[in-house]
C-alpha cells in the first residue's frame, strides 16, 4: 500500500494535512459505462462527448459510428449561466476525481435537457497540470471553476484548519494573503477555469459593510482585468451568522442589489456546528437567510451559485438560486466547521436515499427497502455498489452526485410545470416526508431537515 493510501483519511487532508505530500490518487475502479450508445455535440463544435456506453466521459471526433445516437447538445458556459437551467456543480474530490468526467457525461445523458453542469476544483488542492487535465477532461461541464479559497489565507472569520505546506506551495497567496487580482485570475485561467472568481476571502462580521465593500472593490479590479469573452463571479465566503443576523444579511443583500456590475455571485456559507457531514442544517434563521438571499438574487436578476451546499443548495433553487455545488465526500458536499478528533475511526458506510432526500447509514437501509413503495435506484453506480462484496465509497459518492443531479433536473423550470421550481421542490419534499413518516430512522440517518424544509416552502 502506498504511503498516501495508508495515511489519507478524508478529502480535507489534501488541504490541511502536512504529511500527505505528492502523488496522485489511486485509479478509480472499473468504469461503469452503461450499455447505451450516445454522444453529445461539444459546445464548440470540435467533436462529441460519449455520454453513454463504452468510453462514457471521453471525447470523440465523430459520432456517426453504427449504433451511436446523438444526445442533447451540451450548453455553452453562458447558456449555463443564463438562468434557464439549474446549474449543478460537482466539486472535485481528492479521491476518484478521474470518475467525475464520466459521471458528468452520464448525467448529461440522463438529464441534459433540463440541467447545466459545472465542476469546481480547489486551487490549493492540486498542481496546475492536474487542474488543467481535470478541466479538459470534464467536457460535459459547461462551467469550470478553479476556486482560490482565499478564506484560507485569513481564517479568523470562518473556522478552518491551517492549510498544509503543500496547499501553500500550490497557492502561495495563502501564505502572504496578498496577491494581485490579475495574478489570481491568471492562475485560474492556466488551470482551465472558464468562470473566474475573485479571491473568496471571508467577510468579517465585525466590520460588515467595509468588508463587503472591500470584496466588491476586489471584484471591480477583477472586472477590469477580464479579457474579451471571459466571465467573472464575485466570490464571497461567509460564516452562518451572515445569514442568521439581520444586520449582516442586510449588508449582504444591499450589495447584491447595489452592485449591478456583478451578474454572478458565488457565495459559500460555512454551516455552524453541530451540523455534521451528510446532514442538512435545520437552523430556521440560517434557512430564512439563505431563502432571502436567493430570492433577492432572483429578483435582481443576479445568478446566485451556492457552492458546497449539499441538498440545501437544491432546496434553494426553489427560492431563486441559479445553481449549487456539492461533492461526493464529507468535506466537498458542504462547507462545515472542522470537528476535533475523529481520526482513526472507520469510515461510515453511507448511502443517499433519493426518496428520502437524505443520506443514511448503510445499516439503516433495511428500514427503507422493506417499504413496498421503495424505489430501487437505477443509476449506473448502484448495481455494483449494492451487489459488491465490499462497500465502495467511490460508488456511493458517485451515486449521491448522480441522484442530486437528476433531482436538480427534476425541478428545472423546463419540467416543473405550472408552479415552477418552487412547486416541484415542494412536491418532492412532501413526498419525502410521507415516505419518512413511518420509518424508524435515528441519529444521522434521521432526515430531521425535512420538516424544517417544509415550513420554508
Amino acid at each position, binding site marked *: 500500500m502506498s504511503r498516501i493510501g495508508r495515511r489519507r483519511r478524508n478529502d480535507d487532508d489534501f488541504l490541511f494535512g502536512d504529511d500527505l505530500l505528492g502523488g496522485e490518487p489511486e485509479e478509480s475502479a472499473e468504469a461503469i459505462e452503461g450499455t447505451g450508445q450516445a454522444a453529445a455535440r461539444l459546445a464548440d463544435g470540435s467533436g462529441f462527448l460519449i455520454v453513454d456506453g463504452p468510453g462514457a466521459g471521453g471525447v470523440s471526433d465523430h459520432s456517426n459510428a453504427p449504433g451511436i445516437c446523438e444526445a442533447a447538445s451540451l450548453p455553452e458556459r453562458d447558456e449555463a449561466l443564463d438562468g434557464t437551467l439549474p446549474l449543478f456543480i460537482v466539486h472535485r474530490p481528492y479521491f476518484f476525481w478521474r470518475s467525475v468526467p464520466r459521471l458528468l457525461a452520464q448525467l448529461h445523458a440522463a438529464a441534459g435537457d433540463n440541467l447545466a453542469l459545472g465542476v469546481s476544483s480547489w486551487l490549493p488542492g492540486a498542481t496546475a497540470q492536474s487542474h488543467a487535465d481535470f478541466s479538459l477532461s470534464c467536457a460535459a461541464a459547461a462551467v469550470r471553476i478553479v476556486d482560490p479559497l482565499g478564506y484560507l489565507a485569513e481564517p479568523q472569520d470562518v473556522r478552518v484548519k491551517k492549510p498544509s505546506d503543500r496547499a501553500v506551495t500550490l497557492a502561495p497567496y495563502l501564505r502572504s494573503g496578498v496577491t494581485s487580482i490579475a495574478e489570481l485570475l491568471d492562475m485560474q485561467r492556466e488551470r482551465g477555469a472558464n468562470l473566474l472568481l475573485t479571491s473568496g476571502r471571508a467577510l468579517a462580521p465585525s466590520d460588515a459593510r467595509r468588508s463587503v465593500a472591500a470584496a466588491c472593490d476586489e471584484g471591480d479590479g477583477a472586472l477590469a482585468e477580464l479579457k474579451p469573452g471571459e466571465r467573472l463571479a464575485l466570490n464571497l465566503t461567509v460564516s452562518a451568522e451572515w445569514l442568521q443576523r*439581520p444586520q449582516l*444579511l*442586510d*449588508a*449582504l*443583500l*444591499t450589495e*447584491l*442589489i*447595489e452592485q*449591478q456590475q456583478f451578474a454572478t455571485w458565488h457565495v459559500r456559507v460555512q454551516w455552524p456546528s453541530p451540523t455534521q457531514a451528510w446532514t442538512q442544517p435545520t437552523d430556521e434563521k440560517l434557512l430564512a437567510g439563505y431563502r432571502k438571499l436567493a430570492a*433577492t438574487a432572483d*429578483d*435582481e*436578476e443576479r445568478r446566485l451559485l451556492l457552492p458546497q451546499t449539499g441538498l440545501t443548495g437544491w432546496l434553494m433553487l426553489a427560492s431563486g438560486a441559479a445553481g449549487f455545488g456539492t461533492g461526493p465526500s464529507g468535506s466537498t458536499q458542504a462547507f462545515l466547521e472542522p470537528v476535533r478528533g475523529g481520526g482513526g475511526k472507520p469510515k461510515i458506510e453511507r448511502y443517499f436515499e433519493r426518496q428520502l432526500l437524505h443520506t443514511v447509514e448503510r445499516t439503516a437501509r433495511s428500514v427503507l427497502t422493506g417499504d413496498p413503495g421503495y424505489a430501487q435506484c437505477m443509476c449506473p453506480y448502484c448495481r455494483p455498489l449494492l451487489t459488491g462484496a465490499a462497500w465502495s465509497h467511490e460508488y456511493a459518492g458517485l451515486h449521491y452526485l448522480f441522484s442530486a443531479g437528476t433531482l436538480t433536473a427534476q425541478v428545472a423550470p423546463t419540467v416543473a410545470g405550472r408552479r415552477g421550481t418552487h412547486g416541484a421542490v415542494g412536491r418532492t419534499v412532501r413526498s419525502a416526508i410521507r415516505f419518512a413518516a413511518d420509518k424508524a430512522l435515528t441519529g444521522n440517518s434521521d432526515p430531521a431537515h425535512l420538516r424544517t424544509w417544509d415550513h420554508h416552502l
Partner: protein
Amino acid sequence: MQAPQFTESEVAAALGGPVSHLGSGSFGDTWRHGDTAVKIICDVSYPPERLRREVDGLSRVSSPHVVRLLGTRTVDLRSQQRPTLVFEYIAGGDVAGRIADGQLPTAAEGVAFLGGLLTGVGHMHAAQTVHRDIKPANIALRDGDWSSPVLLDFGLARGADEATITAYGTAVGTLAYMAPEQLQGQPARNAADLFAVGVTVREVLGGRHPFYDPGTAYAPAERIARISKGPYPLPPDVPEPVVELLDRLTAEKTGDRGSARSSLKRLGLTAEGAAA
C-alpha cells in the same frame, strides 16, 4: 415663492431676452428664458465641485424622466461672472406646487407617477448616478401629466463610485425625504433614492407625509423611530400590489428596498417604463 436675487430686468439683459422667474433655492435662481430653464448660481461661495457634480450627473443620464441639460455658460450680473446651467424648460409645474395647491393624483395617476419616477431613477442608477435629493420640489410634471415626472436638480448627485462628500454635513439631502441610513450619516446610495421615491409617491397618494406630522420638528433619532414604526396607511383605492411595492421602497433596511429595475418589474413595466 422665495424672491430672486436679481431683478427680472437684470436677468433679461444678461441673458438677452425676456425671462420669467421659476424658482429660487439657497444658492441660485431659475428663470425661464424662451424654451429653456436657466439656473443662475447667485452665491459666489457656491462650491465649484457641486456644480461639476450636477453637470457630470446630468451628462451621464439620458432619460425622458430626467431633465435634459442643454449646456453651461456664464453670465455677467452686477459686474460678476455667474455660472449658469441651461436646461430644457418643462412646462407643467412641480410636484411640490401640486401638493401645496391640493391637486393630488388619482390612484391610477399615482401609479403612473410611480412608474415614471422609477424609470427615471433606474436610468440614473444604470448610469452610476445617485440623485440623493429626490423630493416633490425636485420633480416636474411634463405638461402637468402625473405619468410624465421629470427629475430635476442634480446639485447633490454623485457618481456611484465617487467618495462621499461631507461638505454639507454628514447628512446630504432633505430631511423629510431622507432614508434612515442618510439620517445616520451614512452615504446615500441607490437605495436612498428609492426610499425618497417611495415617500414622495406615498405623500401624493395619501395626501400627507407618510411618516411625519405637519409643522413638527424631529430630531434624526425621532425620524428613524417613526420610519421604523411604519408609514401611515394609504387610501383603500390604491391597489394592493402597489401598496406592497411602496412598503418595499420605504422599508427601513436598504436590503429590503430592491432596485428600480425590480420595482418596475413589480409594476409590470420594463426598465424603459414600457409594459412588460
